[in-house]
């Protein structure tokens, strides 16, 4: 499986990250683009292939590790964040990536996902959100809109969907971002931002499942509608969008609304993005299921907070310093020990 010719990390190319396994997604699936952007971006990080680990759960999305030529572990449904945590804690030198779906990460795996975020291990979690269960052939997912008609909900779903960035923020995630399968360049940037963030990076990727939920994100990807519906976030930049970039987000008290620049409103009325402002991120996260507001993509939130494995290592260093590096013989012989002839 592994190639025995080794390439220096700085000379790696996309092809070095292509594994020998045939890709088995439906032709036209959004996953292909995500795979391609990852394979394109990875050589830029300048670390060698063997230091990447991909951990996934179960789902169409979770087949990802087979197709990228790094270490990979296709595990069980929903548990990838916990398994990845074990990989990272065992060897913090590794660059650990979780690939997961909306069902895998937020339905069965919801708890592991939020706990990973609060622990803030330096792991990058890519959630392919197609708002459907692909692999099990089309049941609604926790991100499907209310009233969704699917195989398991012939009269429409009854669960109000999770809003992934809002949930991540509620779980005190330190990095929350979003991109879209068709935004190839933007996606590469986001992958890069996730990589360089120290702490858990949560990247939601809207992904079209053309078999069971085709067109879910069409309004965000179609040439005609896209500019009016996608808000590209940039740190410290005003939140402008629209074909002419003449629309902006304005805060009316705490209520966000769309304004059109012109006589009434000027650029000064437009909210300026601040990746480090939890409240702005929360406001943005609430755009998701609303028709009157554009869909933000980019980094919603990014702050530095203590990282679990760093603190763990700290404790180990401290313990070794103050108690002395563990010596088994000494240790078991200390305390109430007696001798029998």
């Amino acid at each position, binding site marked *: 499986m592994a190639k025995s010719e080794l390439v220096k990390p700085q000379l790696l190319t996309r092809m070095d990250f292509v594994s020998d396994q045939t890709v088995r997604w439906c032709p036209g699936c959004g996953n292909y683009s995500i795979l391609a952007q990852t394979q394109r971006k990875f050589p830029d990080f300048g670390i060698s292939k063997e230091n990447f680990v991909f951990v996934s759960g179960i789902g169409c999305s979770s087949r990802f590790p087979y197709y990228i030529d790094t270490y*990979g572990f296709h595990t069980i449904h929903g548990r990838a964040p916990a398994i990845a945590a*074990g990989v990272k804690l065992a060897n913090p030198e590794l660059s650990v990536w979780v690939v997961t779906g909306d069902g895998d990460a937020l339905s069965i795996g919801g708890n592991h996902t939020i706990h990973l975020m609060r622990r803030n291990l330096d792991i990058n979690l890519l959630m392919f959100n197609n708002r459907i269960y692909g692999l099990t052939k089309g049941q609604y997912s926790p991100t499907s809109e209310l009233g969704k008609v699917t195989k398991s909900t012939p009269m429409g779903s009854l669960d109000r969907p999770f809003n992934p960035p809002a949930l991540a923020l509620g779980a005190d995630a330190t990095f929350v971002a979003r991109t879209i399968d068709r935004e190839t360049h933007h996606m590469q940037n986001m992958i890069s931002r996730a990589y360089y963030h120290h702490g858990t990076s949560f990247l939601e990727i809207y992904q079209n499942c053309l078999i069971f939920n085709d067109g879910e994100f069409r309004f965000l990807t179609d040439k005609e509608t896209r500019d009016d519906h996608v808000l590209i976030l940039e740190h410290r930049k005003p939140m402008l969008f629209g074909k002419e970039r003449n629309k902006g987000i304005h805060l009316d008290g705490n209520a966000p609304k769309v304004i059109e620049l012109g006589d009434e409103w000027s650029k000064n009325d437009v909210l300026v993005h601040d990746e480090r402002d939890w409240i702005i991120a929360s406001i943005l996260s609430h755009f998701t299921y609303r028709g009157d507001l554009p869909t933000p993509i980019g980094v919603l939130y990014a702050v530095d907070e203590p990282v679990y494995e760093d603190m763990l290592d700290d404790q180990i260093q401290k313990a070794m310093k103050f108690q002395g590096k563990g010596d088994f013989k000494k240790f078991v012989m200390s305390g109430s020990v*007696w001798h029998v002839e």
Partner: protein
Amino acid sequence: MAKKIKSVEGVVIRFAGDSGDGMQLTGTRFSETTAIVGNDLSTLPDYPAEIRAPAGTLAGVSAFQLQFSARDIHTPGDQPDVLVAMNPASLKVHLPDLVPNGTIIVNSNTFSKKYLKLAGYESNPLEDESLKEYTLYSIEMSRLVENACRDLNLPAGTVGRTKNMFALGLCYWMYNQPLEPTIKWLKIKFSKKPNLVEANTRALHAGYAYGETERIFSTVYKVEAAKLAPGEYRNINGNYALSLGLLAASIKSNLPLFYGGYPITPASDILHKLASFRNFGVKTLQAEDEIAGISAAIGAAFAGNLAITATSGPGMALKSEALGLAVMAELPLVVINVQRGGPSTGLPTKTEQSDLFQAVMGRNGESPIPVIAPATPGDCFNVAYEACRIAIKYMTPVIVLSDGYLGNGSEPWLIPNINRLPEIKVNFVKLSKDTFMPYLRDETNLARNWAIPGTTGLEHRIGGLEKEDITGDISYDPENHQKMVQLRAQKVENVANEMEPTTVFGSENGDLLVLSWGSSEGACRTAVERVINYGKSVSHIHLRWVNPLPRDLGEILIRFKQILIPEINMGQLSKIIRAEYLVDAKGLNLVKGKPFRAGEIEKVITELIG
């Protein structure tokens, strides 16, 4: 009065009182002391599921039994010779277990109307005739410690809580044991509260002095030191021994130890202990649940650590899906189940052996896993170590079935020399000219390759889907599936290669064979020793591995006319043995949340062989 000292071979004492009375601590201190003095000993803590049930109620009674002896003993004793009862409820609960004519020591200050009523006594047993068959010492312990501490100006509650030390001091006097170890321990324990050291020490002395000065005790007993194998000893409980076994395996294998787990009675102490080993580089993760705990451990195993998780029954149930992944991924992993009473939440603080089926058969698909069980608290060390060795050597999860009795019970433990422990070799694959094949197997034991992330040139993918033989690629091929199912089964069967020939205690054939596993070993051995002494043709085999079974077991079993399998379950090993060897093994199956008494087994043996 001069001490009249009488030598006895061994004594069984049970300390009982309210949850808040510190009986576990009292029992532990007594054990430590007798251990240091050189007795063999075995303990049985028994406490309620509530943190602190209402004072004085039957539900709130906490007890600690220990046997200490000049002989090599195997159990905490069938019935106490001495019952220390700190309140009416504890007398009520534990009196039925006392030996006929046994000794009772009570704190008479607690036998007030209120507490008598809470315990359901109509009249005061200290005053009516109900205890007349026993030797009763009714002592005003509360008042006496109050007197002893009067000038310390401590709150009454604080002083009241030292009465366990009084009881302890008195017992030390009765059994001719030194006070120093306990005083030393008090000094460390309360190093920041000298007042408490003083109060407790005074109470301890007061108890001792009470024995010495009051004329009510005619005799002091002496239990000679036991003839134990030479070496350094410490007193140890099963959970601690198990933690040390894991630590030793980490050191000998040169693999960092990673523990992922979730607290659950009676396994939590393993997490606590391992978490205190930071200076050995031990990493612990208190995960969000049992599934995350084992999952993290599986991830750590993939990344090349010595990966451990521990839990008890219900938590084990939650781990079963992930265990299947470890089987399929063929990663080394040690999973510890400190069993407790089931089903469901069951009896969380009581012991049971009823998770054997779950360990051997409780997963979807054909999912074989080696299962090993410790026999005594100290044996937890060896078994934990062996489990790690096998997991790594065979690239497989290994389940350790301990139980509440072993986990909390203690005994003197011959401290092993780490240099003499069997080697644990780890062969991480390195890059070579051959194409790397993740599911290429060792020819003799069938273990697959272990190639860890970070190793140049060995990038590969594993997962829970069926794998193609050798390459490890996903395969839906029918013949391959059959082959892989068989390979995984054969690999686990091969663990039998590691076993020493089965040792039969007693003669090699005869009227009856007692077959045991796990913590029942001690009671079985004691029972068999007794009936052999009566001249019966009875033997004993104890199984350390319950899956796979030793290769030579079948041929041994058929040499006996009858087979008896005592288990704290409804006959789980029995079923396995019957299916495997078609022998008509009988079960002795008590599920009462308690370990066997040797007497219970002895009785059944006697009935069976007439």
